[in-house]
């Protein structure tokens, strides 16, 4: 930034200085919080994950407790823990099924509500969005009551119809959780998609109509390609949310023998930290979870990015 064109430089500097001050003013609150609430905890988690506890004194009782360097042994321990790794497999399976279903639902609802012939749009939009306002824990408690045999009217109705369902069984409970998540987040994703649909200029639809496109054709060939960025966004958010599944299995766990302490990676890290009191291993597990979330999100973005470009080339 030093002096090849001093005259020009000086003018820019003055403008820039003002701009920089303003930018700094606007950025500082964000950066401060970002550092404090995001970078610092991650740094500490990384640091913690490289330590382990050493205890002295007979049987470790009443002696000194200190943290010593552990290298990557906490990571090795986490990766060797079959509960923890099984949890990853489980959330990936969950995501592979639940995310497409939810996004498809959300897209269908968004298209329906944005269709020209839609009625009572405001009411339905709010109604579909409402579950998002229910905190995950509460949603899980509510659905828990609908799942527990002996209490659930659903189980009872199915039973009287000669169908014995067990929503909390070993093979079903994951999908019962998927149901809660879908119930909660479909409306939210729908709203994101609607926002993007609203940004589509009306002329496009008019032009298409004049060209004789049917409602269905407009939806598939105009609306869907145009809301593609929103679809990518909602999918990435859902992917990250899926990897972080916690509240639903945590709340349902006491109700069933089908959810173990490492059911999802987040639950495993939580139990490691707060049941077993092993902060260091929990930190390693948290870091691993963050890494996987990072790889998957950016991997997905890259994948759709390339496909997107391919589409433009055609």
């Amino acid at each position: 930034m030093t002096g090849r064109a001093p005259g020009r430089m000086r003018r820019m500097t003055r403008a820039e200085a003002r701009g920089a001050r303003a930018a700094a003013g606007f950025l500082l609150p964000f950066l401060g919080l970002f550092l404090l609430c995001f970078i610092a905890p991650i740094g500490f988690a990384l640091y913690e994950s490289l330590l382990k506890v050493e205890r002295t004194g007979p049987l470790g009782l009443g002696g000194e407790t200190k943290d010593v360097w552990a290298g990557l042994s906490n990571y090795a321990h986490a990766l060797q823990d079959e509960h923890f790794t099984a949890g990853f497999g489980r959330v990936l399976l969950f995501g592979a099924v639940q995310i497409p279903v939810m996004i498809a639902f959300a897209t269908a609802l968004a298209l329906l509500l944005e269709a020209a012939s839609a009625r009572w749009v405001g009411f339905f939009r709010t109604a579909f969005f409402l579950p998002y306002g229910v905190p995950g824990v509460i949603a899980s408690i509510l659905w828990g009551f609908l799942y527990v045999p002996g209490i659930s009217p659903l189980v009872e109705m199915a039973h009287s119809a000669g169908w014995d369902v067990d929503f909390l069984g070993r093979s079903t409970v994951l999908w019962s959780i998927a149901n809660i998540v879908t119930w909660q987040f479909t409306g939210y994703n729908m709203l994101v998609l609607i926002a993007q649909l609203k940004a589509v200029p009306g002329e496009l639809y008019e032009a298409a109509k004049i060209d004789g496109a049917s409602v269905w054709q407009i939806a598939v060939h105009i609306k869907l390609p145009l809301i593609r960025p929103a679809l990518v966004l909602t999918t990435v958010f859902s992917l990250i949310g899926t990897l972080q599944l916690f509240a639903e299995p945590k709340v349902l766990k006491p109700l069933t023998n089908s959810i173990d302490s490492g059911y999802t990676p987040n639950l495993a890290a939580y139990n490691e930290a707060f049941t077993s009191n092993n902060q260091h291993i929990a930190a390693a597990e948290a870091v691993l979870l963050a890494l996987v979330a990072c790889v998957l999100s950016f991997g997905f973005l890259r994948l759709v990015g390339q496909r997107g470009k391919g589409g433009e080339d055609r």
Partner: protein
Amino acid sequence: MSMSDITGPRRRAVLGGAAAAAAGFALAGCGGDDDGGDEPKGRKKGEKITLTFWSWVPGIDKPVNLWNSKNPEVRVKVEKVSAVEGAQYAKMHAAIKAGNPPDLGQIEYPVVPSFLIDNGLLDLTKYGIDQHKDMFVGWQWQQSVFGKGVYAVPQASGPMGLFLRQDLFEKWGVEPPATWDEYEAAAKAIRKKGAWIETFSATNGNRFAGLAWQAGARWFGAEGDTWTVSIDDEPTRKVADYWDALVKQKLIKTIPDRQNAWYKDVQTGAMASWLGASWGDALLVGNAPKTAGKWRVVPMPQWKRGEGAYANWGGSTTAVFAKTKYPKDALDFAIWLNTDPESIKLLIENGYGTPGAKRGYATSDLDVHKDFFGGQAYSKVFDDASKGVDTSWKWGPATDTLYQRLGDAFTAAIGDGSSFRSVLKKVQRDTISDLKEKGLKAEAG
């Protein structure tokens, strides 16, 4: 205390919070750390203080209110904590790490050692607890003795017994089982009537430990400076095989106990008995009021007829946390709470189990819910059981993890049909590695 003690907790407080935040939780600002590193000076004469007491025991506020009315200078404030799946201990461990634990806490016998390895509890011998020793039941006192220290004041224990619906047993012509063989026969007979005798709750490590305890298992021991672990021993295998067979024959349910579905079964008589503990009377009264008068308590079934071997499930202490500023006052309260006849009376009314105090009540005082049990002096059953509890049982330093291991392994075994013996093998191996992971020396016993 050394200099490192001054900085140590403060650093850990920050790190603990960071790890928690990284795991996806925002802990609202970790509390300040005002420990100067010296022994607390205690209360000045006439100074008014408030002690915080974390507990989940229903009705604990009644004796506390009584204390407060008598001791205006040392107010005790009860903060209720959740006891679901060990949440209260997670909270206490986190608070110790964050440097702001309460002054007093309700801690069950099995988890006392896990607080010791974090230096979380005060050694009460420094404040003269020894002079109160003969007020407490010997073995309950011993549960909190480690080395020369005494780390908690016994509150109550939970000798086990069999709660059963006498009306249903009679209607179906089933005798209350006195041995485990008879218990299995009873399970079959009840199953034929379309009901169930019990559930084997995979996640109830506490009760499984009690069953092993009765059979003569000793899961933990100490050899020199090394913890010994023997979860996969002969007595425990006998117990595991027994329940495995009941599950495989579909003679018992496998739903979690003391949850909504279980309460419903208990209310409707779909489950005709419960292998519970002395504190269970209040639980049944509270959750199945319509079955009043139909229940009885009989001794826990025996492996050998008339052997008189019993076990303990639950029971807890009042512990003083190491960071309290007023250790003397906290101990005074803990002793009063658990030995004062008026306090014991209030605790009994709310169903806290079999008192840790030797005096201050009569066994018949414990028959609070006599009507619910058809006029039976049911506490006699538990009192007798209490005398038959083998007192050499010791808990290890990571009981919560152990219960979690047992719960996970039983969950998997019930799900995929593998044997309960494989559960013991796995949990034995995992527990040894868990203890090592905690920086302790451990080996198979």
